[in-house]
């Protein structure tokens, strides 16, 4: 147990150092810099990392293959947006409707207790966003969780699309602004902390911090008795039931927890993009998140985080040049034009899947020992590439 405490302490220190670095980068990098893409990647990456980890909690640990994630993120994003648009801006946002909600939580609280109220209000709105997503998950889960595997996937996918359609319904316009987007709410780019004369920019730090806290909570859930029960259900439902685990209750618990964090990641997405629009939350978004989970390794939390950040930084940053004519110093406007980035990106994903059949991390978690062994392992891995390529083209089934 003492060893565990030491390990926990080391991970805590690493997380704090990471948060410190993010906070520093937030101050040093200006939006006009070349490196400002790094901040974008950190912001979007943390949104997707939380989404991927919460999906992994359900699909990876409990073994419930659900494809409704985008729907729950949409609920989170809209709830957050509706609750934080300042009253004065509402008329401008709801052009065609008479806004039903006439207050903004951050505004109300900041009138009451000053600037800290804004932060508190944002926090409360984020949590409410998660809770509303959780509530919808409960209602959808009642009929849907009786289904298994592919049928569950299809049913949740259907529900996610229904949610999107309902949010775009013009009759709900006073709440959701129909098929128009919501904007003008509290967004990360305006998050600042004034200490005396000095102003700290928090636009990247806040989403990274929220994602870190949420993922940390999910890690705690995974290591708790509930986490063990989830894995037991995935491994063998009958044995789990015979051991006294209430299947329906635990599946619902996992579904609602996963959706709660999906709702929070949706709220973060609204915060980062500074708009919320239902048409963004198509099933394609679910597939993107599923891709991150699979690339990182189904059943590995650190894998999902790595998968999310690699996915976002590759598609948003490292391959940008392929769309705009110049990449890695190579200038080829004929080939490197709009859309070529996606071609290269798809090829990269196929290569990764072929070489890492169980995802980058498999079902293991990132540990210090693993990082220490990296130099040796990477060397061995590179040495084995020719063999692997050969096995891909040989007729025999590769092991």
């Amino acid at each position: 147990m003492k060893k565990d405490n030491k390990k926990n302490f080391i991970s805590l220190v690493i997380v704090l150092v990471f948060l410190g670095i993010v906070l520093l980068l937030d101050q040093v990098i200006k939006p006009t810099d070349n490196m400002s893409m790094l901040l974008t990647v950190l912001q979007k990456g943390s949104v997707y990392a939380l989404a991927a980890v919460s999906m992994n909690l359900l699909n990876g640990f409990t073994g419930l293959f659900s494809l409704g994630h985008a729907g729950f993120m949409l609920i989170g994003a809209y709830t957050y947006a509706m609750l934080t648009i300042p009253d004065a801006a509402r008329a401008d946002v709801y052009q065609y409707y008479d806004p039903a909600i006439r207050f903004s939580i951050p505004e109300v609280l900041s009138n009451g207790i000053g600037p800290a109220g804004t932060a508190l209000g944002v926090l409360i709105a984020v949590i409410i966003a998660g809770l509303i997503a959780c509530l919808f998950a409960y209602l959808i889960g009642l009929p849907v969780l009786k289904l298994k595997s592919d049928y569950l996937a299809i049913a949740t996918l259907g529900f996610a699309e229904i949610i999107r359609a309902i949010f775009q319904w013009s009759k709900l316009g006073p709440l959701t602004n129909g098929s128009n987007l919501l904007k003008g709410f509290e967004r990360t780019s305006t998050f600042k902390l004034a200490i005396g004369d000095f102003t700290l920019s928090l636009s990247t730090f806040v989403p990274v911090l929220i994602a870190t806290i949420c993922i940390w909570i999910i890690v705690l859930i995974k290591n708790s008795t509930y986490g063990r029960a989830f894995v037991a259900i995935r491994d063998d439902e009958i044995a789990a039931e015979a051991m006294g685990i209430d299947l329906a209750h635990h599946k619902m618990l996992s579904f609602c927890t996963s959706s709660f964090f999906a709702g929070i990641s949706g709220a973060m997405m609204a915060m980062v993009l500074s708009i919320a629009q239902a048409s963004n939350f198509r099933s394609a978004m679910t597939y993107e998140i599923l891709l991150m989970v699979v690339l990182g390794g189904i059943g590995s939390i650190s894998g999902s985080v790595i998968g999310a950040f690699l996915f976002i930084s590759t598609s948003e940053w490292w391959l940008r040049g392929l769309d705009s004519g110049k990449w890695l110093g190579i200038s080829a406007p004929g080939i490197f034009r709009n859309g070529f980035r996606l071609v290269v990106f798809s090829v990269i994903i196929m290569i990764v899947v072929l070489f890492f059949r169980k995802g980058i991390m498999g079902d293991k978690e990132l540990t210090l020992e693993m990082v220490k062994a990296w130099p040796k392992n990477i060397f061995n891995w590179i040495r084995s590439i020719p063999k692997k390529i050969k096995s891909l083209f040989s007729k025999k089934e590769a092991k």
Partner: protein
Amino acid sequence: MLKIRDLRVNYGGIEAVKGITFDVPEKSIVTLIGANGAGKSTTLRTISGLVKPSGGNIEWNGKDITGISSDQVVKQGITMVPEGRRVFADLTVLENLKIGAYLRNDDLTEDLKWVFDLFPRLKERSWQYAGTLSGGEQQMLAVGRALMSRPEVLMMDEPSLGLAPIIVQDIFSIIRDIHEKGVTILLVEQNANMALKTADIGYVLETGRITMQGSGKELLNNEDVKKAYLGT
């Protein structure tokens, strides 16, 4: 005392158990033997709440527990070791044992010690994933996992299934050890010889009905049983 009265179970239109009545007295070893499809496993699964009966009732210490959910059954002190081991392959041996005690909130140290004393092999391998254990070790883990719920009645569904004869001997001696600790045992077996040697009371099931009953010894010496199940 566990009393089964006129228990009937349907799978779709097929009646797998056609009204069986038997008793499991406290601190005894009771065995149900019979051919494949006789309804032995179905009976256990019904008692443990995995399958709902279509008729009859199950009484435990004077309380009707017919058709209650499986977690409630475990709470009442009746735990089943499912057929075919069914350990949680992606959890370690220790985690498997902890899942066995899922419904308990008290200290597990003593029970873990007991299980590890019964199965020293499991202690050596407590950090190993259960999926990497051999068949015999998995069966031991399945029994140990069920014991972690601190059952008054342990129901075992074919614990000797697919195990080498020498390991079957081990398993049965462990069943006797567990019994000596005061646990009532309800055993379902194809290996009628071993089961009847171990049991105080035996019931023979044929196509959903009890056709014979008696003490283990009586059944072992019964000519019909010998012919049908002992192959002598």
